[in-house]
């Protein structure tokens, strides 16, 4: 996490429930205001999509761990979400992550591709989330068994 005497930290551990996402996003965006409107906005997008992924594709009973640190001095933030994923989802997650590539340009292209393929997906499925996170941050993915940790660095 960000090492900064002036950083704000938010650590939350909660059961996977959709209705808990929006209040947490609002609280965190308000807490990130000191880092500037742009960073706070990006934190909101990234947190929402990470948590939606965790709730949709995660183990239904295990807790989701969220660590957020926000530096008002450096105008940076880091959002880390850890949870247990459904094993059937792991390979797809890895494939989606690799498709995003390592830069904003490749993330933008991945998001554009995801928009194009939406019509071929069943209703309710978008596959847009990861590409959207990567457009707004530097995203890293760690997988250890069924444990998934996604870290998004925002500046």
């Amino acid at each position, binding site marked *: 996490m960000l090492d900064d005497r002036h950083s704000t930290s938010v650590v939350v551990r909660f059961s996977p429930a*959709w209705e808990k*996402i*929006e209040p947490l*996003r609002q609280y965190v965006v308000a807490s990130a205001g000191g880092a500037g*409107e*742009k960073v706070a*906005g*990006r934190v*909101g*997008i990234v947190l*929402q*999509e990470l948590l*939606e992924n965790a709730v*949709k594709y995660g183990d239904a009973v295990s807790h989701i761990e969220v660590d957020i640190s926000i530096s008002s001095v450096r105008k940076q933030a880091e959002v880390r979400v850890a949870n247990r994923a459904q094993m059937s989802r792991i390979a797809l997650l890895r494939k989606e992550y690799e498709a995003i590539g390592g830069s904003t340009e490749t993330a*933008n292209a991945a*998001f*554009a591709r995801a*928009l*194009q393929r*939406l*019509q071929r997906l069943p*209703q*309710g499925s*978008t596959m*847009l*989330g990861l590409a*959207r996170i990567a*457009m*707004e941050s530097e995203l890293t993915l760690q997988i250890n068994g069924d444990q998934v940790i996604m870290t998004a660095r925002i500046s």
Partner: protein
Amino acid sequence: MSSLARVEPLVLDGVEITAQRDVVAMKGVLSMRSPSETVTPFLRRVHVAATEAGLKKLTVDMTELRFMNSSSIRSLVDWVEWIRKEPEARQYRLLFVTKPDVTWQQTTMSAIRAFGGEHVSVQNGV
């Protein structure tokens, strides 16, 4: 009766979408899990009314829409696809009015504009 007046507003927890004349106004937060059950059918009704009225441009005011999740982005993409599938004479253009200081609107709507081509334009409001 104006073009879209017969389309009843969509009022859900945290979000309100209204259609009047040639303007659709979205207010609040679009972050539901399954917008395909509510938002998409609403936009479909707007689309049908717009084509029946022969509109050539429909403004979508997003200046008071504070957030939209990726599931809701799909509803917008579906809307663009419906327009594309219409015969040319019944097609119309969506003009999204956004707020310049809202981060997600700038990045997401830029991608939607690129996707929508001639059917989508984006303009910063106040």
